[in-house]
């Protein structure tokens, strides 16, 4: 990234002399900061506050301290929510990274067909989550979906994938993987295109094979991009409520109910605002942990990564 030089000379007799040169950057940043402060920071603060309150049956609101947290942490449903979230997240990351590397290597290489395929590979990324959800549901429909029919033929009976506690979770994870890998691929491709070709050429002269070149050169030289892309995916996966809600409603039972789905249901369907505030705070805390990791990674010599 090029270093920034401020422009210090400004002519007189213009807008700047009226408002004062010093205040200009703040005026320029003002609208953005105001929007973020009022509609992002303030709600977070209020969310923290709400998580310490309980609404009684008669509508009265009491300060209950950490009671909401205590109640939630003791629930077996909450433990299941956490497990589903972690499975959903880990599954997505483990599947996305290898395919993203393969796809990035393909679209970054000097193949004539690369540009067309890059466009195709990016399609999941621009598809609305609700649209890809309906497309994936059509795929596993036992009557007309090719995957649903295939699985029914193989197992000899009609299988409702989205009705099975384990397969439902696996299937929503695969869907999330389908949506996520193109983004990781783009980041990795950006990283790979920054590696000078001479690095590979000298490795080849030294007799390094394809696999060795990947593990010794590509992998370490793109680790920054990988970390940042996976972090963004982590956050998206952790907060994704709408796709699972539209797939299974969190079921069967609570099998696919992740923290985000629980929050979504308790906030906008059951209107239990205090419980959802607590889950919201838990999600925010998790994301702060990830942000710290992010800052560290970008701060430690990875400054050229966007």
């Amino acid at each position, binding site marked *: *990234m*090029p270093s*920034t030089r*401020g*422009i210090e*000379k*400004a002519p007189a007799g*213009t807008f*700047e002399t009226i408002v004062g040169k*010093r205040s*200009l*950057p703040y005026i320029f940043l003002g*609208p*953005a900061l105001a*929007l*973020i402060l009022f*509609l*992002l920071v303030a*709600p*977070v603060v*209020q*969310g923290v506050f709400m998580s310490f309150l309980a609404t009684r049956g008669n509508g009265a609101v009491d300060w209950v301290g950490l009671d909401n947290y205590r109640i939630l942490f003791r629930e077996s449903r909450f433990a299941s929510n956490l497990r589903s979230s972690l499975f959903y997240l880990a599954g997505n990351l483990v599947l996305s990274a290898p395919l993203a590397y*393969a796809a990035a290597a*393909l679209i970054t290489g000097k*193949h004539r*067909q690369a*540009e067309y*395929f*890059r466009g195709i*590979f*990016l399609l999941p990324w*621009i*598809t*609305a*989550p*609700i*649209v890809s959800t*309906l*497309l994936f549901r*059509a795929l596993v*429909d036992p009557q007309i979906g090719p995957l649903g029919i295939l699985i029914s033929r193989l197992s000899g009976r009609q299988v409702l994938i989205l009705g099975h506690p384990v397969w439902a979770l696996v299937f929503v994870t695969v869907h999330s993987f389908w949506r996520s890998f193109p983004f990781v691929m*783009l980041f990795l491709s950006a990283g790979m*295109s920054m590696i000078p070709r001479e690095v590979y050429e000298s490795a080849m002269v030294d007799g390094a094979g394809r696999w060795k070149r990947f593990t010794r050169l590509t992998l370490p030289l793109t680790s920054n991009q990988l970390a940042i892309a996976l972090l963004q995916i982590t*956050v998206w996966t952790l907060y994704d*409520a*709408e796709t699972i809600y*539209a797939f299974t409603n969190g079921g069967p039972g609570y099998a696919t109910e992740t923290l*985000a789905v629980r*929050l979504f249901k308790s*906030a*906008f369907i059951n209107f239990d605002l205090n419980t*959802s*505030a607590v889950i*919201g705070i838990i*999600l925010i805390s998790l*994301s702060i942990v990830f942000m710290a990791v*992010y*800052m560290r990674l*970008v701060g430690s010599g990875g400054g050229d990564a*966007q």
Partner: protein
Amino acid sequence: MKHATRTLQRGLVWLAFLGIAAFVLLPLLWGLRTSFAPDLDNKVIPSFLTLKNYSELLSRPEILLYSRNSLVISLCTIIVVLPVGLIGAYALARFQFVGKNLGFVFMIIPLLPAIAVLVPLVAYMNRLHLYNSLVAVILVNSVFNLPFATWMLRNFILANPISIEEAALIDGCSRVRMLFTIAIPMMTPGIVAVVVYTFINSWNALIYSFALTPSPTLRVMPQGILAFMGSWGTQWGGITAVGMLALLPPLLLFLIFQRTFVAGLFGYQLK
């Protein structure tokens, strides 16, 4: 011998390209097929093609309403995000001021969970008398697109040589005028990328509307799809047709601006 291995290698590369493409395209193409196929036809190539699903859809007034709402929200979000993001990005890229290092926050904020902020936001919008209005959805969409858009534009401004701007200033051009006549026109690709990015995100967003506009007349396309999925059950022809319609605007924008869009998002030039 060498020729044979090269052919083999080329074949393997093609195989890899096609394999990933198949994985990506399977749900999309199956959806496209189903939207043109007669009901309950489960052959890979349907026995005949029909426009029935689309003509039934387009005869429903709510489809038009939902698309209109989605379009209004997406365009208004762009109208808020672009100017606010541009001047903010310019300040971050070109000015020296106390607190400038906090500009980093713009990169971090996208990592905040929208869903966690929504509950207090609903209470907020209620107090501002904006609950159940498109304005609320536009504001929330803007806030969630703004940080990344600002950061993206900042990188674009940094990539432009500062000397042209300096020359204009020395020649007596005011900074505000210079911004509009020189700096902004130079970063058209960045602006295109931000517009496409913001449009696709706002067009695809579901939960903000779900939380903020319960009224059926204010529904956006994704909300409509969720409702159809609930009430139409397994009428896959109709459901996939709605999905294809909703996919069309982002797809067209993406196809037209792919190169600029990708380069803009990642701040690097693709071949």
